[in-house]
């Protein structure tokens, strides 16, 4: 059996990669991909806890299903916004989209 800590470390590594990508990338689609990595890391943690801490009760898996649902809605809306911004400003770099900055 895999120790719980190793599954959690895997989740933390994936989340850190996502965090780095979210902060260090300029293109909005790249930022979104990094956010997907982070959401997946959260799902790994939920599934690991569900399997180890409360075997039999699969609440973690139910939560992960909802996280995937919200992630799907989020990526659809976010990509629509990216397309809209690209049409209006001809750029998809997040540091050039500063309409709300004074």
């Amino acid at each position, binding site marked *: 059996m895999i120790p719980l800590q190793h599954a959690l470390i895997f989740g933390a590594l*994936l989340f850190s990669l996502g965090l780095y990508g979210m902060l260090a990338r300029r293109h909005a689609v790249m930022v979104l991909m990094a956010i997907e990595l982070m959401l997946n890391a959260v799902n790994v943690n939920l599934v690991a806890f569900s399997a180890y801490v409360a075997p039999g009760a699969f609440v973690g898996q139910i939560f992960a299903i909802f996280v995937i649902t919200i992630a799907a809605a989020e990526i659809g809306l976010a990509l629509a916004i990216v397309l809209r911004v690209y049409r209006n400003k001809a750029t998809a770099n997040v540091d050039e989209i500063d309409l709300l900055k004074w």
Partner: protein
Amino acid sequence: MTAFQLLFYLLSAASIVGGIGVVWSTNVVHSALFLVLSLSAVAGVFLVLFADFLALVQILIYGGAITILILFAMMLTRVADEAVVSDSPQKPWGVAAAAAFFGITAYAIYNTPWNVGTAAIQRVPFRDLGVSLFTQWAIPFEVASLVLLVGLIGAIIIARPEDRE
């Protein structure tokens, strides 16, 4: 080391390599393909952790739908023409934040007495999952479907071209 453990470490290594590819690659299309590798490997990890249904959902939604959506968005924002994208000037802060997060989390993971039972991990039958989703979790389930509907309509309205007159 049993086959299960070997499989877990191989899959998580593949997923981490894919994740590094996503944040490292300067070509956006390569980045998206690395994302497929990473998310499919996570589906494998779900299988090792006996979450069969989630592994299926993961392959269907992340391996299929979301990747296709991202590739389409790249095509429409013509980022694939330029191909090479630069990183933001806050890259060092990104490294610092990610390293700090990982350090703190790893410290917390290894210093928390986890209340892990000795019972072996058991497979959750699809039937139990479905029944519980439609009885105990019925209201969150309906709210999630409403969120999806709102997301669908919102995405259409936002992405629709404006009227020319």
